């Protein structure tokens, strides 16, 4: 194939395309996002033993810690943790078969399930520990498979998976917008977690559009990007609040 490729060089400051803003002050830790994600993305449930052994398939988890001791004990603000869709992701270069690559079109970290051979190097190298591995073919007895989302591949054993920012919704919105001859409007669609969140603590949108809601929220002064010091260029901004 003699097709020319112009080498795309990413600059350090390059903004991503899609991003999340998470307000930990109003996140109540209710797990609605976790359930929504599971339902949208065909996540397997793994049962008591495996889930207690660090094998649960949550693409998003809500972290909380404790500060102080009784009676001055405080629960730290709930911290939903999902793939940060790094601009410079440590998980990508280590995959020997290009199963996790950077999407030039959507500026996301892709996980190509059918290419994955299961070395799990990406998960080791993910500073956020947000990748889940299909340790087994987890059973979904009939008729539970009726619920599976046809837009999302059902993963089998031996494959790594992770949050995709609901890329199927991104594609669907873009496809719809294109069919109608317009651009995707901010807020036209959102990820499953953001859509479910009763407190609206998760907001999804274009971070490269200064007018979008996420950009506006992201410009508030006290936002934090986790482990930014590693140079991962994460696309999720956290507000601890308080």
């Amino acid at each position, binding site marked *: 194939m003699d097709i020319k490729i112009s080498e*795309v060089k990413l600059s350090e400051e390059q903004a991503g395309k899609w991003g999340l803003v998470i307000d930990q002050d109003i996140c109540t830790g209710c797990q609605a996002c976790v359930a929504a994600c599971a339902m949208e993305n065909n996540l397997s449930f793994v049962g008591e033993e495996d889930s207690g052994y660090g094998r649960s398939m949550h693409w998003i988890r809500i972290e909380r810690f404790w500060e102080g001791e009784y009676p001055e004990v405080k629960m730290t603000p709930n911290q939903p943790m999902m793939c940060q869709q790094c601009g410079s992701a440590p998980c990508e270069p280590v995959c020997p078969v290009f199963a996790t690559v950077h999407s030039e*079109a959507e500026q996301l970290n892709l996980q190509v399930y059918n*290419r994955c051979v299961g070395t799990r190097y990406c998960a080791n190298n993910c500073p956020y520990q947000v990748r889940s591995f299909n340790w087994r073919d987890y059973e979904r007895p009939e008729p539970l498979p009726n619920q599976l989302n046809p837009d999302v591949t059902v993963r089998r054993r031996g494959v790594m998976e992770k949050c995709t920012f609901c890329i199927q919704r991104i594609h669907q919105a873009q*496809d719809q917008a294109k069919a109608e001859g317009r651009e995707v409007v901010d807020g036209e669609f959102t990820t499953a977690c953001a859509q479910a969140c009763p407190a609206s603590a998760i907001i999804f949108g274009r971070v490269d559009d200064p007018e979008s809601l996420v950009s506006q929220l992201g410009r508030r002064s006290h936002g934090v990007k986790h482990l930014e010091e590693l140079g991962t260029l994460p696309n999720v901004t956290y507000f601890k609040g308080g």
Partner: protein
Amino acid sequence: MFKRLFDWLIQPLGLIAVGIAVLAVFSLAAYGINYTQQPPEQPIQFPHKTHAAFGVQCLYCHPGAAKGPSAGIPAQAKCWACHQQIAKTQTSVLLAPLKQAVESGTPIEWVPVAMVPDFVQFNHRAHVAAGQNCENCHGDMTKVTVAQNPQVFNMGWCLNCHVKSAGDDQEKLVKLSDCGTCHY
């Protein structure tokens, strides 16, 4: 020279080499046969040829192709809408399953031939919108009776066309060749 080669070939190592070569040729042949494999058995020997000859448009029976991801197999009610007015339907042996299905209210079990694997998220609409004709992928239906798959829908085949249609447009190429365009 030839004798030497021959001598070498009858050595055990030479025989192994011969074996590998034979196996390779055999596999290639098998692959070739498989490539042009027979279509699956269908409940009705549906003649696409005949329908196309009557001027029935693809999108009449498969309207989903212009509207969404799946082109779809028409409901038997759609078949019946025309066929109940055609006298031959009552008598034809080939059409008996249709008649029976409609009368008994059981669905006809078709076997789709043009399939992509589960891990490929294919959308007809985008392809139709981009000006692709049905026959570009599905072959000329005016020539076939039972639908056949003219090519293996593999990734190289998809990509070839994607890259070609992007042409010099870098942005389009990036969009069309992104892993995440089809795999998620």
